[in-house]
């Protein structure tokens, strides 16, 4: 038989209770949807004010309104699309080739003892080389057309992709693989249904990095040897002291990077909804 007590109330005691001090605040930062935009608007407003009132020389730092006008004129003349389309073509092709090769090599390193032994040594040796330093050599090998620029981007993307893929494969919990093996699931199905989705968060994080690398390399490559492209445009504007045009190119690069980031966010939301 259970001996049930009646619930106690604080009125039963003569001494007045005092609240327990709350000590659990902080260490839980949360993003605010509007704070970033508000901050950006404030910075642009201050910048505009500084340029309009003559605090800064517009030759060194043109006003945001001047940059907007430059972008508008570029768009209307068709030059923006011409430069942008060349850059997108180079980035797209280089990123695609580098990513496919990186995913294949990354999976091979993640799954095969022999590939791991050979691959990690090569990647460790070649990854730290600034890929843009190889452009002159690639021009010698591939000629002065688009190939060396695309190859430079592909090389830069390849190493980071391969590293993020095999790190992702390594991070797949071994108990899931053992579970699949215990049900006699074939190797290819374990790769497709366990290892690929398990490595996907790392692979998509790698995409975010390689998109930035591709952007960096396309601008560098276009500055070295291209007539069209955002990098070439920025360099020409700099040589002519057209700083509004130069910053227009920089803003376009920033917007392009933001768009790619959004695209990867969308991919993550769609493919990693289970997290």
């Amino acid at each position: 038989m259970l001996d049930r007590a009646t619930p106690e109330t604080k009125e039963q005691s003569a001494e007045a209770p005092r609240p327990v001090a709350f000590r659990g605040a902080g260490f839980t930062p949360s993003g605010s949807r509007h704070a970033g935009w508000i901050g950006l608007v404030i910075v642009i407003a201050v910048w505009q004010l500084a340029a309009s009132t003559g605090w800064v020389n517009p030759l060194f730092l043109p006003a945001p309104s001047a940059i907007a006008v430059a972008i508008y004129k570029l768009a209307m003349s068709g030059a923006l699309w011409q430069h942008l389309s060349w850059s997108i073509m180079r980035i797209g092709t280089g990123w695609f080739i580098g990513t496919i090769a990186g995913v294949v090599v990354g999976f091979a390193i993640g799954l095969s003892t022999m590939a791991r032994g050979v691959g990690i040594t090569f990647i460790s040796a070649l990854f730290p080389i600034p890929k843009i330093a190889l452009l002159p050599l690639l021009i010698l090998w591939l000629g002065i057309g688009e190939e060396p620029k695309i190859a430079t981007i592909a090389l830069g993307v390849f190493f980071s992709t391969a590293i993020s893929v095999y790190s992702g494969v390594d991070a797949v919990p071994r108990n899931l693989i053992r579970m699949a093996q215990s049900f006699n699931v074939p190797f290819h199905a374990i790769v497709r249904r366990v290892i690929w989705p398990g490595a996907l968060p790392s692979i998509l994080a790698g995409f975010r990095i390689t998109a930035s690398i591709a952007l960096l390399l396309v601008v560098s490559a276009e500055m070295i040897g291209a007539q069209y492209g955002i990098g070439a445009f920025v360099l020409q504007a700099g040589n002519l002291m057209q700083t509004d045009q130069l910053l227009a190119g920089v803003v376009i690069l920033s917007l392009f990077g933001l768009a790619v980031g959004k695209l990867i966010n969308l991919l993550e939301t769609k493919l990693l909804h289970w997290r």
Partner: protein
Amino acid sequence: MDLIADHISHSFGALDVLDDVSFTVGAGEIVAIVGPSGCGKSTLLSILGGLLRPAAGAAELRGAPPADSLNPLTFVFQDFALLPWNTVEENVAFPLLHTGLSAGARRAVIDDALRRTGLTDFRATYPKQLSGGMRQRVGIARALAVRPAILLMDEPLSALDSQTRELLMEDFVRLLADGAMGAVYVTHNLEEAVRLADRVVVLSRRPGRIREIVTIPMARAERGLSDARGRLASLQGDLWSLIRKEAIDAEREVQHA
């Protein structure tokens, strides 16, 4: 179908883990494996299930598995081992995808496994949305779906709170009651061992050797009755006295390691 541990020994590098372990699990029999921490219980189960090659000896099967069995030796894992990107239904379907079952037959098997484990209403749920107990139910449903002859259960309740453990233990008793499936049940919980097993294999501290094989002298069906509790507690006490000193020694060994 019998599962035989035939003079199994194993070591990890210089660390001897198992030493000459032999016993047989008969058809429909439940054998619990208990012993001090680090005595090689889980290693032994991995060897019995073909996930680890022993240094010496072998795990063997005698007799044909049931005709409808899709995976005669099937694990239930301590950490559930569910695919977090798959729903409950997809997790249960996972081992069936490569068995050659038609889509209709597969659906019937999945429905049956979900019904038997009380998961029908949770089929579209993801593992992260479930409690620990419900996740282990998914692990059990997945195991049942392949109609095993012998379940290999590696401390399946140890990651759960005591109330959930009690509920799942009742489920195990019910699912194994008809004797259609045998089981090897690795546990450090002696109460679970005497409640569920027909025989208890007691291992010594590392390297694990068979210290004793104890038969539980009570039909499984009787153990849920209230007057059986005293006898089960007494059996549990007997088992504890067998392993107590070694458990203390093993504990000290772990602390000094």
